[in-house]
């Protein structure tokens, strides 16, 4: 009895602001998945019901994780990391090809996206590694940390899934930063990264600007290793009007959707772009759900949505601040950065600030694996929170 009572008290210590924000985001997600799919006649019409099931399962995982002492992850971290790498290799070999990329694994009637698990694995492993090194000694090696992240990243890049792969960079950086790494090499890394991006853009743009013959351009791109779809997306991002019906379609349509929302939106289930299918039906409940919300609720609605994320991220960083140990702290920072990266990339992409890349909006976009794994990571944040000192 006493034990159950203790568990109950521990559970009650969760950060209720955070839980409220999560539930609110889940509700918003289900509502707008419904809005995006209710006119359909095929089985994707019931994605909202599906999402409710995932959300309920995910919440169960979330609340159960509170009782899981995050420190016990140390024991499983490396095994988990190994398993995820194995899954990532497997997905490249036997994964289901959807929309030109191998990202999904089907096992026991369950469709799993190993790249989502990989984020979790890297965060947990990195936290374990940083905490194991302890504080006070020499600052952690940035190269070792990046080597840890680089293996799954490379495998994900191979799928190809550039967006997901890129998420590893800010997560690793933030965790290193909080974990005591000296900030100079980190800054140098950022500068180097910026230079690399600039170089990449030059490679994409310069040949044409220099009037290079198409065959030579093609050969050059081949040597650099840029695939067609990557180049197209970068092109489209830089010159959105170059191909409004092809690769530029999603970007242009999501911008129209957001823009036509105005201050107050067209009203729930009233979005022209959404209902008439100009926001492609394959992505409107997933990666472009933000455009649906923005069109139907306007600036007022999407700013409020960002407000919910601010609450969520704030709670995550609070948990990091108040964490009882280094592992808890970097774990919370990693998870918070993960959520933040997704929100930022997704909203920036739908709003035309970044190239289109397949990054879902946490807790809102349709998608089972990501939803449950996100809720599990947030459960870990709560697990740190309820074990704070005092």
């Amino acid at each position, binding site marked *: 009895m006493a034990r159950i009572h203790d568990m109950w008290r521990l559970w009650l210590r969760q950060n209720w602001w955070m839980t409220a924000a999560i539930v609110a985001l889940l509700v918003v997600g289900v509502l707008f998945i419904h809005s995006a799919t209710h006119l359909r006649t095929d089985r994707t019409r019931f994605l909202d019901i599906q999402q409710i099931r995932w959300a309920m399962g995910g919440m169960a995982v979330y609340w159960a994780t509170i009782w899981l002492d995050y420190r016990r992850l140390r024991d499983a971290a490396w095994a988990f990391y190994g398993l995820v790498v194995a899954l990532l290799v497997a997905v490249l070999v036997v994964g289901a090809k959807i929309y030109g990329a191998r990202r999904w694994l089907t096992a026991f009637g369950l469709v799993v996206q190993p790249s989502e698990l990989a984020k979790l694995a890297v965060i947990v492993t990195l936290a374990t590694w940083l905490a194991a090194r302890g504080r006070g000694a020499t600052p952690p090696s940035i190269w070792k940390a990046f080597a840890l992240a680089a293996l799954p990243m490379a495998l994900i890049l191979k799928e190809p899934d550039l967006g997901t792969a890129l998420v590893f960079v800010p997560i690793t950086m933030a965790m290193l930063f909080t974990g005591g790494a000296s900030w100079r090499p980190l800054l140098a890394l950022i500068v180097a990264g910026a230079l690399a991006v600039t170089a990449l853009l030059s490679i994409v743009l310069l040949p044409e600007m220099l009037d290079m013959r198409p065959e030579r351009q093609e050969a050059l791109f081949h040597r650099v290793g840029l695939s067609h779809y990557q180049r197209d997306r970068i092109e489209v991002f830089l010159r959105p009007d170059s191909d409004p019906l092809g690769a530029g379609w999603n970007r242009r349509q999501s911008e129209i959707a*957001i823009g036509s929302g105005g201050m107050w939106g067209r009203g729930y289930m009233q979005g022209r772009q959404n209902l008439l299918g100009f926001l492609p039906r394959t992505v409107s409940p997933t990666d472009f759900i933000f455009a649906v919300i923005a069109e139907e609720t306007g*600036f007022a609605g999407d700013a409020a949505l960002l407000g919910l994320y601010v609450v969520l991220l704030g709670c995550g960083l609070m948990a990091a601040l108040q964490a009882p140990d280094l592992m808890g702290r970097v774990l919370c920072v990693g998870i918070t950065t993960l959520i933040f990266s997704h929100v930022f990339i997704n909203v920036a992409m739908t709003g035309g600030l970044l190239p289109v890349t397949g990054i879902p909006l946490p807790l809102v976009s349709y998608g089972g694996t990501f939803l449950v794994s996100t809720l599990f990571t947030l459960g870990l944040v709560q697990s740190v929170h309820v074990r704070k000192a005092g």
Partner: protein
Amino acid sequence: MAALDAGAHDALRVAGLAALMAAALLLLTANLWRIQVRTVGKFDQDAVEQSTRALRVPGARGRLLARGGEVLADNRPACNVALDLAVFRRAGRWARTVDEVLRELDELRHIIGRPPSLTAADIDRHIQSRLPMPLIAWRDLSPEELARFMEQADGRPGVDVVVEPVRAYPQGSRAAHVLGYVGRAGGDAEDKRTYQFVLSESEGRAGLEKRWNKELCGQPGTARLDVDVTGFRRGLTVERSPEPGADLHLTLDLRIQKLAEAALGDMPGAIVMLDPNCGDVLAMASAPGFDPNAFLPVFSASLWETLNQDPAKPMLNRAMSEVYAPGSVFKPVVASAALSSGRVTTETLFECAGYAVIGGLRIRCWNTAGHGSVALRRGIEQSCNAYFAQAGAQCGWDAIYELARRMGFGQPTGIDGYYEVAGVLPNDAWKRQHWHEGWRLGDTANCSIGQGALAVTPLQMAAATAALANGGRVFRPRFVRGVQRAGEAAPAWLAPVLVRDLQWKPELARAVRQGMYDVIMSPTGTGRRARIEGAALAGKTGTAEFGVKGSGSKHTWMIVFGPYEAPRYALAMLFEQGDSGGSTVAPRVRRLMQSVMDGAEELAPDGSHT
């Protein structure tokens, strides 16, 4: 925090992280503000533009009404069966959707009882270019077909009866040449810029339907179709209702029109009857005729081809679109010119020996025995060629040409109908241009008896007759006397147009009129067979040879006005073939004028009055 040594240091780093995130989210919010609030309207417009199509909705076509208000051209509802393709959309290639539509059409075919007017290629074309519009599979269901459809197929998903207004001519072929007919409008270039789709609309192709098309059409309305990304219709909003076209109140008197058409029968010819006091066309008939309903609801090119290639030329409006040698009906014009010139008086005598020789040309008179000494009045009554050849020569062609021109020959009368030809009024310049030789005295003689190069329309002849009847006032003939726009209680009446007043001296006009009176009222007059009971008429017969000389091909004419004292009718009647104006046309004029004056409805087949 006590749990960690470097608490403050770490807290700073977490706070730095928080600041970074906050800045990034602020950037996102600013971007959203820029797109959503700052650029107001632009994206909204883009969204509406790419998901809507403008549809041109025609206004109901105006009606054509006879003088008494009888409807000559109307609109009737035609029931079409239309398919909504969105319902038959099948995933995958479009061919699967086409198959699905064909399957449905096949089922409907058994219910309606006739095959649809569509092929797979038509459906394909519809998908390509008119996807959000209903696909019309059957046009103009008969009442039986409609009943079968309503009983067995009503409520079938995606299948609907769509009512479309179709032009109808309740009087059939009555006045068909005047009214004309309609076809499907192609839409002009401006419409194609403004509208993506145009609902089929009737467009005048001939007659008043064509000439007054703009007034009859009214103002088109606009509807907005909401389409999804594949182009299917999701909704329709009427943005601007169409305005119906104007009704035209015609000058045609349906009773007289019927009588005129009966008088023509099947013989190729034409009748024009004007009101000499204002130029109103009371009747205009041309035979043979056609039924404009045959072009409805869908204009058939093959039928048009057939009618157009018919040697009897049923589509030709002989009353104003074809020219004929006037023959003797031109003589009153010559008489008026001669008197006006002063070189010939009512007393001037010319010898008729059964012929006259003018400028080396021998002009034969129909009376081979000769009329002896002839003055103007008897010259007209007897239609003496010798008299007119000499009178014309004495007067000189220039004076005749001038008056004839002022009476409307050699140019269109300017009637508000469709397709009027000018005819030929020759003179020296004309002859030099066309025949490359100068005008001779013989030409004057020939033209003075209505032969030579002279060519007139029956309408010009009727207009000249009206001027002779009213003492020299030339009115522009007209079909439309009032235009009633939609929603207006009364039509806007149009004033008659007096083209010119020839300002004839009364005694001059009287002299020519008296001659024309004698033509009908004198026992020896060439047009005596046109005499009727109860009213005095005046007129002139005419017989004009055409084609190869001596071939016996003759146009036969008669012009008439009456009642003599206060004329209300001016008539020109022509048959393309006949013996002579006096024997072929005059009896028909008598029957026609008798019925017109009596107020009778129709002619009985034997010519007696009903």
